[in-house]
């Protein structure tokens, strides 16, 4: 079993194995996303109260899910790298950080655009949006820490520690913000989600969530592969690989 685990940790093995799976995963992601978008934009019924602006949910919700899930991916990869000193895991953590930050940004921007026709304002300090903003700060902190250390090893360890601290704090922060918002909640509207979803609205959302998960995996693998090439550039296998591809 340990042999399998250590093989799993070999950057070269990951590079070669992921190369085989990547095309299929990408096609799957593309199909899911296309189907989901077309379905959501054109074929799902519009919301009684919000009209067609409700269709933004098909991007906003999946992005939010992945933004949060991505943080856990980053933190767990960091933990594995820290505890078992697995360099590949460090590389995955480093790749996961900007992807998660970007998805959080997408969630915030789509949420803001959705807010304008719904509440009349681009920004509103409700629990969900405020938590998303804090998540963005958590990501930016990890990214900034990565780039502040000169030694790659130290950078990975420091980011891993910070991601773990963040991971432990996320439930606390979310609960606190939630509590804070219910204290001050002005009136009726809870938040940016349709209160009860008709199955015709929910199914395309499911497709989009799956599509986003696949997309996340593709982006993560792509970024990790580049990171591997860069860090292992002095090895024989990378030199051979490069020599085999003129372009």
């Amino acid at each position: 079993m340990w042999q399998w685990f250590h093989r799993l940790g070999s950057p070269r093995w990951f590079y070669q194995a992921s190369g085989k799976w990547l095309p299929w995963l990408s096609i799957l992601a593309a199909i899911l996303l296309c189907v989901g978008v077309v379905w959501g934009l054109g074929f799902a019924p519009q919301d009684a109260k919000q009209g067609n602006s409700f269709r933004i949910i098909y991007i906003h919700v999946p992005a939010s899910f992945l933004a949060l899930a991505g943080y856990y991916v980053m933190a767990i990869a960091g933990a594995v790298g820290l505890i078992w000193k697995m360099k590949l895991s460090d590389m995955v953590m480093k790749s996961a950080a900007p992807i998660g930050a970007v998805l959080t940004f997408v969630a915030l921007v789509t949420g803001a655009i959705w807010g304008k026709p719904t509440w009349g304002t681009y920004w509103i300090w409700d629990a969900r949006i405020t938590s998303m903003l804090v998540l963005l700060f958590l990501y930016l902190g990890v990214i900034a820490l990565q780039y502040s250390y000169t030694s790659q090893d130290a950078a990975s360890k420091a980011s891993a520690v910070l991601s773990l601290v963040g991971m432990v704090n996320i439930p606390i922060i979310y609960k606190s913000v939630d509590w804070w918002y219910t204290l001050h909640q002005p009136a009726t509207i809870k938040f940016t989600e349709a209160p009860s979803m008709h199955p015709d609205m929910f199914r395309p959302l499911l497709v989009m969530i799956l599509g986003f998960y696949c997309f996340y995996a593709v982006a993560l693998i792509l970024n990790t592969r580049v990171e591997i090439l860069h860090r292992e550039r002095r090895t024989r296998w990378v030199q051979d690989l490069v020599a085999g591809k003129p372009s």
Partner: protein
Amino acid sequence: MELGFAAILRRDLLLAFRHRGEIANPVLFFFMVVTLIPLGLTPEASRLAEIAPGILWVMALLASLLSVEGMFQGDYRDGTLEQMMILPQPLYVMVLAKILAHWLVTGLPLTLLAPVLGMMLSLPEAGYLPLVLSLLMGTAVLSLVGAIGAALTVALRKGGLLLSLIVMPLYMPALIFGASTVQRAVDGFPVEGPLAILGALLAFSLLVSPFATAGALRVSMHG
């Protein structure tokens, strides 16, 4: 030279006392920004009273944030940190001593001074005791949590801004519950709820933060 919890505590307090001017800094900051608020907003007592709970807590948080940067830097520069880390005593204990010293020198004075500032901002009478209680526990949480950020950035050159970025999200729960303790008291509601949560936050940070800080110190020192 014996170097246990008490010894480190005593040493840090002695050092702080010798640099009395530096202790004044977060306290002075607290005073100054509280003066800026009426200048920027309004001198009207009623309007100030409305925002006083939140303002006082935010300012205390900022003052704490400013001071946390120096927690490990002095010892890092003169090599004492390295010494502390190779001693047989667990790093957890040493870190706890340093954090306690830091709190005694920054958080505690802030807490004791807060009623004066509350008066300057027309804080209604019901708010004073909750203010002190919440700041007492809250500033301790802030010192504990800030230590993690200070440890992660101690070896970096421009660590200050990065420290603020790292620590800010972690500060939010304490701020939320601390400020609402005072606000609820002012509005006439019972404060046991948020105060209890602040207590839980304190217990949790006491347990977890020194570990994370010790780990972060090791990363900073040894890479």
